[in-house]
């Protein structure tokens, strides 16, 4: 296959053309536009940050610039691997001890291996946060999509539920959190809990806040299924379930995904706040711990966390967008 037929991502297109010698002048302008301008923006931002940070003196020392933050990012990575090595060594020690014991006295029972209790590293916290946000998001979607379809189909149900939705939608996660914490403490009292309470609290808070965009968009998507398609369904005498499965659901997929994308964005924002307050392990708790810690490195570490949170949020959004493009039949839907 010739190079000219290869499918390349749109941002690589000018490079590919440049390589092919296809109107080079035009391609260079395109490259500058698509690659040069973003790089320029980033460079300007870093310069502003560097010069601005030098003027801010805090109780924890000077506000760190990009270089210090980069250094802290490296530190956090090193700490993670150091901690991992420690954990491995910890388990090895136990096993070695057990083996020794067995060698001395073959009848002795091997001691159970104890779990490693070192503190979670930055990377661990990222993992925890991702797990929590996905749990909350999936839970919210499982409630919001069916409920949205029901509301979209029934005008009466819509009238009944709409005021509630409008009132609960703008409630901040910080307001839900104390309520959720207390209710979970009262209700979730199994002696051997499957999940930690703080995890349940975070997941429920995330769910309560990220429910609404999916709910509303699904309902709107279902309401706007065209009359003609409904008439087709009637002429074909589709049963209620078939009508939903074959007409309503596919017709509202683009709107449902718009809602899901908004919901995931909200979920991620809410999660950080919830983790900070609920002391649930995760990025939020990391930020809070560093804030309480107040060492000379703390500000740099918090900034690493801020950038990581932003980056992960961006990646999550892109993933949803990719999924939307893949699943949705409406390729013209706004997908930016």
């Amino acid at each position, binding site marked *: 296959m010739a190079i000219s037929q290869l499918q390349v991502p749109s941002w690589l297109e000018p490079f590919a053309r440049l390589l092919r010698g296809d109107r080079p002048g035009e391609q260079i302008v395109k490259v500058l536009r698509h690659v040069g301008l973003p790089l320029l923006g980033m460079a300007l931002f870093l310069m502003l940050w560097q010069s601005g940070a030098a003027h801010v003196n805090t109780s924890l020392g000077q506000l760190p610039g990009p270089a210090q933050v980069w250094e802290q990012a490296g530190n956090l990575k090193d700490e993670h691997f150091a901690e991992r090595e420690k954990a491995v060594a910890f388990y090895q020690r136990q096993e070695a001890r057990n083996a020794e014991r067995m060698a001395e006295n073959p009848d002795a029972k091997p001691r159970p291996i104890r779990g490693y209790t070192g503190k979670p590293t930055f990377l661990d916290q990222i993992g925890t946060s991702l797990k929590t946000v996905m749990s909350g998001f999936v839970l919210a979607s499982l409630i919001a999509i069916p409920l949205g379809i029901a509301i979209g189909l029934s005008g009466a149900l819509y009238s009944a539920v709409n005021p509630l939705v409008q009132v609960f939608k703008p409630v901040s996660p910080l307001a839900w959190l104390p309520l959720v914490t207390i209710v979970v403490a009262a209700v979730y009292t199994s002696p051997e809990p499957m999940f930690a309470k703080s995890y349940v609290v975070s997941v429920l808070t995330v769910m309560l806040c990220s429910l609404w965009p999916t709910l509303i968009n699904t309902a709107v998507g279902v309401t706007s299924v*065209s*009359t*003609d*398609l*409904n*008439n*087709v369904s*009637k*002429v*074909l*005498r*589709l049963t209620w379930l*078939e009508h939903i499965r*074959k*007409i309503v659901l*596919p*017709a509202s*997929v683009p709107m449902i995904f718009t809602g899901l994308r908004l919901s995931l964005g909200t979920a991620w924002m809410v999660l950080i706040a919830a983790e900070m307050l609920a002391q649930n392990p995760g990025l939020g708790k990391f930020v809070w711990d560093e804030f309480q810690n107040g060492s000379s490195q703390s500000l740099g570490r918090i900034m690493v966390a801020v950038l990581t949170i932003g980056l992960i949020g961006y990646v999550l959004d892109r993933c949803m967008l990719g999924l939307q493009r893949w699943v949705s*039949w*409406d*390729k013209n839907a706004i997908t930016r």
Partner: protein
Amino acid sequence: MAALLDITGVSIEFKTDKGPFKALDNVNLKIAEGEYVSLIGHSGCGKSTVLNIVAGLLQATTGGVVLEGKEVNEPGPERAVVFQNHSLLPWLTAYQNVELAVKQVFRGQKSRAEMKEWIEYNLHLVHMDHAMHKRPDEISGGMKQRVGIARALAMQPKVLLMDEPFGALDALTRAHLQDSLMEIQRELNNTVIMITHDVDEAVLLSDRIVMMTNGPAATIGEILSIELDRPRDRLALADDPQYNHYRHEVLRFLYEKQRKTDDSSAGRKPPSTNTSAATTASVADEDSAKSVTAESVSAVVTPLHKKHVA
């Protein structure tokens, strides 16, 4: 001649904020098997309402529709509808759109292979073999309408209902589809009720043209039997005195007897759908020009139609 479909004393009233609005009054029509009947009239006269009552999408206030001795009171595939704007499911291919209908109608009657054959046969009838695995957004407006017709034909309806099937198409595409439809009719001899605002289309395709008076309380004004030999050829007919006589009859009814005054006109359709050719005498062209001055009336009629057709 025994009637297959019997519309008797059909009237319909819609509730509005300003009290009941009588759209149709005492519509009576008998249609024989294999007959091709066109409904023509000015926009807003209730042609679509008649069709929707036959389809079962609307319920007559008084009177009723009997198909083969059974009263019609809900929609069903034996009265398949071809909608004006194709109404294909945009996420399915042409084949899958027809398949949805076939699976629904012939469930338990046809085997998987028979269904496939039947779907392909119907798509072949409308000359869509080459694009049957394309989705609606990948094919032209005329092709979409072809698939819409194939879907309706595939339900093997007793009566095929067509609501301005070619109304949204350009003149050339429309002529192609009319020819295709005549060809299909020669083969299948379906019973058809078609709504149109195109006089040439009505004369060319129909066995009878049912001309409706203006609403409110619209009813059947005149019925014109078209006794032209089939197969009909549009070029040969252009100079045929008999053909031109029929055309004039319909035009006379529409523009002399049922001439719309400004206060009785109700432009229901947006002008964009009135894409009739310059050579085609069309009722809609005049409507679109008049509908601007008829805001007051159309404001009453439009929401009504939308609401109840829904």
